[in-house]
């Protein structure tokens, strides 16, 4: 089986950010291990096109660019930013017309939206949420967490085409090459997308707040029932602010209505793997641990020394969150200002 790799990357606010660098870096690594080449595909406006050579820093030599305005003009509508079905069709058709049979993309909200459709269009095997990709005896084996990280599976693929979504924040961007990837415009009319269903359109994107989302954050400070009430979460927010972190919460406090459900970390909330996770007043119910135990460094602050959270913590303090959190916030401000 010989592979030809296509890395689909997305931009944010018309710039390429870490998720794109992660996908390109992994494509570069796999191409080298499989002794093959890879190309990049992206969809965006002219600003995105102008930013595309930067992907060369992570090993891309060729970036194929689909003009979003040209794509949207096929819809006959004037005012939308993104159509899931159109993106999926563009990527699937580009891959099949150009012989790409291994497609990597980020497991972002967008990636998780389009990858299932791409896999059906290409009759492909699909692995979402991969945290490691290995080659064993020439075959691709993809590792992904299941049961919210309580265990892992290694998957092999039966189809000739493979689609793999990479869990964000796990694969490291690796510098390789320079800021000069060739950017090649794709003729949209060559993609046979005339039958795309443009009936579903994103009319508007509401940014819920200026706050960082736990799913994207490199540092997370989470609070649980130990905070005793919603009025005390300013302690969590202050510590988070001092660290440039997102705020998270346990299921107990979300179910109690103290915090919005978007902050919930755990098996029925978000699964996160930041470089630093600070759990404050969280005892560590198994469904919470499932959602955060793959964090690189875990700090626990809890008054109960036997709390399960300490069993997976790298560092911790046994003590009262109401004394420790303000002191910790001040200490971090102090060292950060030096």
């Amino acid at each position, binding site marked *: 089986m010989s592979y030809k790799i296509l890395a689909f990357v997305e931009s944010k606010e018309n710039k390429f950010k870490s998720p794109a660098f992660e996908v390109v870096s992994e494509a570069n690594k796999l191409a080298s291990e499989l002794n093959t080449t890879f190309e990049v595909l992206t969809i965006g406006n002219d600003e995105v096109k102008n930013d595309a050579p930067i992907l060369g820093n992570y090993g891309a030599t060729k970036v194929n660019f689909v003009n979003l305005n040209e794509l949207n003009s096929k819809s006959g509508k004037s005012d939308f930013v993104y159509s899931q079905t159109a993106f999926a069709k563009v990527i699937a058709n580009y891959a099949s017309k150009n012989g790409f049979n291994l497609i990597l993309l980020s497991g972002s*909200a967008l990636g998780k939206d389009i990858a299932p459709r791409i896999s059906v269009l290409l009759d492909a095997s699909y692995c979402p949420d991969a945290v490691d990709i290995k080659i064993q005896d020439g075959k691709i084996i993809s590792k992904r967490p*299941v*049961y919210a990280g*309580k265990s892992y599976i290694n998957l092999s693929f039966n189809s000739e085409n493979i689609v793999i979504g990479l869990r964000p924040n796990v694969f490291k961007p690796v510098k390789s090459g320079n800021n000069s990837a060739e950017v090649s415009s794709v003729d949209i009319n060559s993609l046979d997308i005339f039958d795309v269903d443009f009936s579903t359109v994103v009319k*508007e994107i*509401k940014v819920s707040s200026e706050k960082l989302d736990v799913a994207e954050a490199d540092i997370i400070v989470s609070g649980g029932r130990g905070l005793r009430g919603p009025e005390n979460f300013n302690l969590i927010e202050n510590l988070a602010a001092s660290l440039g972190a997102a705020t998270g919460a346990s299921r107990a406090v979300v179910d109690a209505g103290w915090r919005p459900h978007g902050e919930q970390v755990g098996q*029925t909330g978000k699964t996160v793997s930041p470089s630093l996770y600070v759990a404050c007043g969280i005892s560590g119910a198994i469904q919470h641990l499932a959602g955060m135990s793959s964090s690189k460094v875990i700090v626990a602050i809890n008054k109960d020394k036997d709390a399960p959270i300490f069993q997976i913590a790298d560092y911790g*303090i046994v003590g009262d969150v109401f004394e420790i959190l303000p002191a910790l916030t001040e200490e971090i401000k102090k060292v950060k200002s030096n």
Partner: protein
Amino acid sequence: MNIIVCVSLVPDSTTKVKISADNKSLDPNGVSYILNPYDEFAVEEAVQLKEKNGGELTAVSFGLDKSKEAVKKAFQMGADKGVLIKPDNENYDSYTVAKNLAEYIKSKNPDIILFGKQSIDFDGLSIPNMVAEMLKLPSVNVVVKLTVDGTKVTAEREIEGGLEILETSLPVVIGTQKGINNPRYPNLKSIMASKSKPIEEIKPTYTGNKTEIVEMALPAAKGSGKILTGGADQVSELVRLLREEAKVI
């Protein structure tokens, strides 16, 4: 309104995962199974749509006999009919599940198909959109607000740090996220009534998986951490460790 809700039975979120002797699956001993929590939101949303628009609500599950429990829970919450697509064994992947659900759904021509955004066992977040693509239908997943007005559909979908507001039309596939509603508790009457409701069993039409699990394993155990016991007096030591040893701040 002809409504289909797809439900799955999953290990309770308090389950401590143990691996079977085959090293490829969960050891089911001692595991208690529940209706997938995200599917509860889908069933609730489906029941509300039926209450508002009339029509019929069918709950469909793919799985072995025990999956009937998921259908029964849907009955208790207000589903009218139940279907189990029953394979011969548990060796099926998400593509196989999606393909069989799509085949069934196609034969019923529903106005709306609801799913939980993902099941809490394999967490793929993939089946709703796979089914939609197989049926060539629009879909919106991770939905926290849904409005259906005639054939016009408006859905709010959660993305990183915000929401997308989408417009589409029936028929549509919707995946529900926590926050969309508060699932009802079944009352005693509906629990009793659900016991006698029949569940139609059908055979899968497709069994060729596209992925194989070669191994299931537990994450590597962590070494014991440095836990300081001196309360707030240890804050500066903690910060020193995080800076100098862990190098994370």
